[in-house]
């Protein structure tokens, strides 16, 4: 592990510098105020200590200007804290356009990770330094939380839904990966290691592991293996809708409303097809629940993405994927 001391945990991502600066600025300002209060308290308590048992001190009741001062000043400071905190939050939550996308599945009690090139790993995550990485994460059971302290990022990972997180490693090294949301017996064992590597080393690592083919090409295999292709033709004459150019588009649902065809929606379409029926179709599609693993779903999603409209990156919403949990009809139409 890289060096870390009591004043600063390892800092190895593009935002960790900004984060630590803000954190310590707060420590200093709040520290000054807190020490000021402590000194005032102790000074008053000692200086104005009771000198005789029957002493009646001057009865000061209120001083409005003083009160206004210590209402207004902290308030202004608080608003500043909010403002900068919100800015930092947006920096942390909003991935850049050129981020490479990885998939993460959390389950009791391990992390499974899939790279677009096809490499898979468990409780380990290899990333190149200098490249923005975006993780699309879902859980197979309970809520977990993906936490890399050295990168100052964390995001809960929910069942039946995709959440995202992004980072750009700035320093090669090995860092902790923790599960930060309590998830049962071995919650504290759901840990792993992040390897940030020089791009060159990273390429070597990828080459060694990429025998299986890329995520979307495996997905294409699955598409035939599970018989999706039997119904979903690319000429529009199949029993199911054409899945080409679907990804990221707005789909009209029979019975009113619409939904964005994002990861969450596609996942739901495979596991629980009857939840939302595409307008103009019937509930013909069987459920694949129990027959298909979370990894295979991700491969299928990668495939459907690959045959979707280009450019793929940046086309999909960046923070919370609407799919199952947003109220339909509220999304802006222009997507």
């Amino acid at each position, binding site marked *: 592990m890289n060096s870390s001391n009591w004043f600063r945990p390892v800092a190895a991502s593009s935002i960790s510098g900004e984060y630590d600066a803000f954190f310590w600025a707060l420590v200093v300002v709040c520290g000054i105020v807190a020490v000021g209060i402590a000194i005032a308290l102790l000074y008053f308590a000692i200086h104005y200590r009771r000198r005789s048992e029957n002493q009646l001190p001057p009865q000061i009741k209120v001083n409005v200007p003083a009160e206004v001062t210590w209402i207004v000043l902290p308030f202004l400071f608080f608003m500043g804290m909010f403002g900068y905190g919100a800015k930092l939050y947006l920096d942390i939550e909003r991935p850049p356009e050129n981020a490479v996308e990885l998939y993460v599945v959390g389950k009791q009690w391990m992390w499974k990770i899939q790279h677009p090139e096809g490499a898979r790993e468990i409780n380990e995550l290899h990333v190149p330094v200098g490249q923005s990485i975006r993780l699309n994460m879902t859980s197979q059971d309970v809520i977990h939380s993906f936490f890399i302290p050295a990168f100052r990022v964390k995001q809960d990972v929910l069942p039946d839904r995709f959440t995202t997180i992004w980072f750009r490693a700035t320093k090669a090294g090995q860092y902790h990966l923790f599960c930060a949301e309590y998830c049962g017996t071995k919650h504290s064992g759901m840990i792993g290691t992040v390897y940030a590597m020089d791009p060159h080393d990273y390429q070597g690592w990828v080459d060694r592991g990429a025998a299986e083919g890329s995520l979307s090409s495996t997905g294409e295999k699955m598409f035939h293996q599970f018989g999706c292709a039997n119904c979903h033709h690319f000429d529009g004459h199949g029993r199911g809708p054409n899945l080409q150019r679907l990804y990221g588009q707005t789909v009209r649902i*029979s*019975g*009113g*409303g619409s939904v964005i065809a994002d990861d969450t929606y596609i996942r739901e379409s495979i596991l629980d097809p*009857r*939840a939302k029926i595409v307008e103009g179709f019937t*509930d013909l599609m069987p459920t694949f629940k129990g027959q298909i693993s979370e990894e295979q779903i991700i491969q299928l999603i990668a495939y459907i993405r690959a045959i979707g409209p280009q450019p793929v990156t940046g086309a999909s919403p960046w923070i919370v994927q609407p799919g*199952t*949990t947003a109220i339909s009809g509220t999304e802006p139409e222009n997507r």
Partner: protein
Amino acid sequence: MSESSSLAVREQFATADQQRETATVGMWVFLVTEVMFFGGLFMSHIVYRLLHTAAFDRGSADMNILLGSINTAVLISSSFTMALAVHASQEGKWRRLAGFLFATMLIGLAFLGIKFTEYYQHYQDHKVPGFWFESSGADPGAFQMFFVFYFAMTGLHAIHMMIGIGVLAVLLFRSGLERFTSAYHNPVVIAGLYWHFVDIVWVFLFAIFYLPGLHL
């Protein structure tokens, strides 16, 4: 307040008026807690209905509107007799009071009878989540969730009705003993507040469970 009323003033109060106001405040505060209690369910229902509008509408279409609207009228009638009971107690006419209390209880029981008839019909339709549930059509999860909320909310309401009937039974007994006078009858008023509140809850349950599916 007359002499006789001082008998009923408890030791922590100075006057009967103070006692009445305190009890009124206490009861209304209690009703606020009930608003929040049911409110949690109403809120989740609103969220899920917006997420799964179509499925919830279909669930609503399975309700028996005839029994539902009759029951609404029945419950409103019981509120009316309850109000008359309060009036009788204020005038100190204990026979009328007892009569109206009894009527309110009977109408309340009728409501429960109709409600359980409906429950039985749902059971026969295999629409009881957790025990026997069969669903068809799109979005079966959300369709079942409609019934989860239906049973949870009307069930909780029915429990409130039963408690109300129990309270009325006690009042009926005490009015039979001629405990209530025009000067001291606050328990009747307070129980009335509770009864009307339960009525209001039903008014909303009727609106969210029975009506939305009617035009389908």
